[in-house]
Structure formats: structure tokens, C-alpha cells
């Protein structure tokens, strides 16, 4: 169609419309142009762009970094989580033979995985070396500690079943007290849950902050190109056409912020890696700090990009409609 219409202006005037495929190609081309042009504009002002990226990067890195830290803590505590352990403190008068026998009986049960007998003398000795209260302990007339059987249920036993086992063992006449060593773990878990929610709340607020910052940055970009928008609308630019470069600007700010956030988190982890490794070594643990990973970093960049788009959309939908040719 394009060649024929070159023949006559009179005919060409009625051919100002384009075919659907041409329009699609043109639309695609304008997306490419807008993306490139917006990126160029962002890079043309490296100072202010870097500031925007940093603000977004820090706002994203904070909750993400805290989340990575929590992940690491729960990874450590997962090693303690199961199997739970039941401590059976025996009655005062129970002889060692009877205690040994009880240990074997318990060990034969199907729901018990492991048992360990700790005699009161052994416990005292252990306490003496570990606590450093040797002098105090030496002054005691008799050993205050009871005999102890540590019962580890089989791993397949769930929480209520372990609690039921504890109640059953408590009923044994030789047992003074059966204690399930899970309370502190539950406390830790609920503390972790609380921290997670706090991180989520802080993250949510920072995300809103990022949206507002981006919205404001885009609003300024819109203001500075007001004349251009008016001209584009005068020569037939649709709202979508006018919107496009600003949405891309938001995208570039968001993606840049996401990349910076991933970098910040990685640097922080690298900074902490050595002291944590030393600490783990002191506890004879093979614990290793786990970072964001490639996928985590990628998700962060995608999240940044989406936030950028959303923030730009917010600004564009609020401010662009008010700019009309006057």
C-alpha cells in the first residue's frame, strides 16, 4: 500500500491509516524506542540516577537482608528441631541397677529411638567441669543431682505423640519427673515467627516507600517534559503512547535498584562470612552462611522492576491525564 500511495497526494490523503500488522510493528518499534530512550535519559544523569538507585537498593536490601539472616537462623535451629528429647529424672531411692534396667526396657520400645543413662555422679562431674562452680559444689555435703535417663523418641513421632509419651513415662513409679525439652525450642520458634512478621511489616512499609519515591521521581520527569507531552498529544499521541517512556523510566530505576539491593546484600554477607565461620568453628559446627543465590538475586531484580513499573504507573495515572493541550 505504501508504494501505490506515493503516486498521488489526493489519493494518499485517504490512506493515512496503516494495516494491522504495520501498526503492531510500529507499536513494537515504539516500545523498543521508548525503552532505549528512557534508559539513555536515566544514564544521561548518572548522579541523580545513582541516588535514586541507592535509595531503592537500600530500601529493598534491608528487609531482604534481614530475611536472609532469619533463613540462616532457622537453618541452624532446624538441626535442633527434632528429635525432641525427654529427660526422665529418677526418684531418689532408685538403685543404679534398676535404673539401667529401666533404660534397657525403654530402649526396647517401638516409639523410642535412643536412650542414654546419666548417673548422678557423672552428671555432677560434668556440671563441675562445665559450670566452673567447682568450689561451690565441693562444699556441698551431698550430690543434689538426680539420676537421669535421656529418652529420644523415634524421628517419625510428631509433637502430640511425643507429649503423650512423656505423660506415660511420667506415670512410671521410678520416675520423679519427665521433662520434654521442647519449650525453649517453641520459644525460639515463636520468636522467629515474630521476627519474620516484623521483617514482613518493615518490608511492606519500605516497599510502599519505594513506590512513593519512584512515583515522585517519575512525577518530576513528567513535569520536566510537560511541553513535549502537550506537543505529542496535539499531533495525535494517545495516552498509552505518552505513558510508555515514563513506564520504562520507572522500570529502569526499579531494575537498577534491585541490582544494587542484590549487591548490597551480597557485600553484607561477604563481610559477615569470615567472623561467622570462625564462630561456627568454635562451636565445632559445619555451619555455613547461605546467601541470596542466583535465583534470589534475580527475584530481587524482578521485584525491583515490578515496583518501578508500579510506581511509574501510579505517577503517570495521576499526573499525565491533567496535561492537556491548552
Amino acid at each position, binding site marked *: 500500500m505504501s508504494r501505490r500511495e506515493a503516486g498521488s497526494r489526493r489519493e494518499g490523503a485517504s490512506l493515512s491509516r496503516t494495516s494491522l500488522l504495520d501498526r503492531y510493528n510500529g507499536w513494537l518499534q515504539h516500545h523498543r524506542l521508548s525503552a532505549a530512550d528512557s534508559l539513555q535519559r536515566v544514564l544521561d544523569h548518572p548522579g541523580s540516577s545513582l541516588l535514586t538507585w541507592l535509595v531503592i537498593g537500600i530500601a529493598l536490601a534491608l528487609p531482604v537482608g534481614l530475611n536472609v539472616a532469619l533463613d540462616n537462623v532457622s537453618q541452624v535451629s532446624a538441626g535442633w528441631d527434632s528429635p525432641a528429647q525427654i529427660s526422665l529424672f529418677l526418684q531418689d531411692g532408685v538403685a543404679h541397677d534398676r535404673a539401667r534396667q529401666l533404660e534397657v526396657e525403654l530402649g526396647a520400645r517401638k516409639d523410642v529411638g535412643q536412650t542414654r543413662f546419666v548417673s548422678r555422679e557423672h552428671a555432677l562431674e560434668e556440671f563441675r567441669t562445665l559450670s566452673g562452680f567447682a568450689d561451690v559444689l565441693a562444699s556441698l555435703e551431698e550430690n543434689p543431682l538426680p539420676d537421669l535417663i535421656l529418652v529420644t523418641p523415634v524421628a517419625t513421632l510428631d509433637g502430640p505423640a511425643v507429649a503423650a509419651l512423656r505423660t506415660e513415662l511420667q506415670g512410671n513409679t521410678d520416675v520423679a519427673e519427665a521433662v520434654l525439652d521442647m519449650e525453649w525450642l517453641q520459644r525460639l520458634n515463636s520468636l522467629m515467627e515474630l521476627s519474620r512478621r516484623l521483617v514482613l511489616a518493615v518490608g511492606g512499609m519500605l516497599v510502599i516507600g519505594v513506590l512513593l519515591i519512584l512515583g515522585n521521581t517519575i512525577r518530576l520527569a513528567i513535569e520536566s517534559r510537560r511541553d513535549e507531552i502537550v506537543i505529542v498529544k*496535539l499531533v495525535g499521541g494517545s495516552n498509552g503512547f505518552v505513558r510508555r517512556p515514563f513506564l520504562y523510566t520507572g522500570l529502569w530505576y526499579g531494575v537498577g535498584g534491585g541490582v544494587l539491593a542484590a549487591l548490597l546484600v551480597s557485600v553484607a554477607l561477604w563481610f559477615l562470612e569470615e567472623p561467622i565461620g570462625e564462630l561456627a568453628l568454635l562451636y565445632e559446627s559445619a555451619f555455613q552462611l547461605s546467601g541470596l543465590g542466583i535465583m534470589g538475586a534475580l527475584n530481587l531484580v524482578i521485584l525491583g522492576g515490578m515496583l518501578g513499573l508500579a510506581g511509574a504507573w501510579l505517577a503517570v495515572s495521576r499526573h499525565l491525564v491533567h496535561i492537556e493541550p491548552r
Partner: protein
Amino acid sequence: MITFDRVSKRYAQGHDALREISVHINRDELVFLTGHSGAGKSTLLRLIMLMERPSRGQVTIDGQDLAEVRPRGIPQHRRNIGVVFQNHQLLFDRSVFDNVALPLIIAGYEHREVGRRVRAALDKVGLLDRERAMPITLSGGEQQRVGIARAVVGKPKILLADEPTGNLDPALSAEIMDLFEEFNQVGVTVLIASHDLVLISRLHHRIITLRQGSLISGSAL
């Protein structure tokens, strides 16, 4: 091509910009629109561009009642009309080529087609050798010709001009008017608002005169 039927425009402050205007402009016609500033010339053009809506009456462009054009349809409507402004309204951070290409980019033309049409339009206004120049380096007359190239590059059926020679000396003004006549001769309906009576009365085209929003003369051939 352009029909105003008892069109009035009253602004919110109670000022009547146009009163009961009825006028018809034929296809292929070149018409001048004149009157003192504030007589309603710009308002009339703005109604055609759908920058404003009339308070009363009906505006019909190329058989289309403009009251039926929804906000969503305004961009498409404007693409069929070329406009030349007194202050050129060029983008000063883009080259001459990019300025002229803007309507084609908006309409979604393919890359090579854009280049071909832009060069044809620039050739028409005699600025083919300046396509890489920035508008700021051009003279007032050249800037206006860039504006005209941008107005005609999409091959519109209608060409509007609001004081296109406002800031130009007589010789340059005459050149610009020659350009409009050339476009008219190839079938474009041209409506030019101008208060330069000396210039337009020499050109032997219909002259519509407005005074304080009312039509004084030139309502029909």
C-alpha cells in the same frame, strides 16, 4: 469537509468566545480566518482539534459529528488533521528529522516508511539538507517550515494553521503562504487563521471574518 452548525462556545467565566457560528468549508478549499485577537479564531481551530467542546451546536469534520468522538478517539481524530502553530511547538531536544517524524512514529509507521515520508516532507519545505540540525540552530522561518513539514508528513486531509506567519517578515510570510497553496492544490483542505489582512487579501481565497465571536462575512462562497 468542515461544517459548523450554529456553534457557540461560552467559557466558564461567562465569556462568549463564539456565538451561533454557521460555516461550511468544502473539500480542497483554502480559507482564511481573520479577525482581531480575541475574536474567536483560535477557539474555532481548537473546536476542530477537539481541544475544546462546543457549548451548543454541531461541528462536523469529514462527515464525522465531533460530539460522537469519545476522549479515547481524540488521538485518532487529531492524526487526520495537520496543525501549524504560531510558536512552532517544536521539540528542541530532538533533531529536525525526529520532530517531523513524530506524527508518523505516533501513528505506528514502519521505520523505512518513516524515513521516506520525512524526507519527502522536508524536501517539500526546502529543508532536506537540514534534517540532522537541531531546531534551535534554525531561523524563525526555517523553524516554521519544520512545523509545516511535521503537519503534512502524515498526509492529513485537513491542514490548520494558527497565525503561521505571526513572527515572520513579509517575504518569508509570502513563502509560507505559497507552501500552503501548494498543499491545497494537491487536495488538502486548508484553514489558516491570520490577522495579516494585507497578505491574505492578495491571495484571492475566501476570507471568514469574526468579530467578538460572531461571523461578519465569508460564511459561504
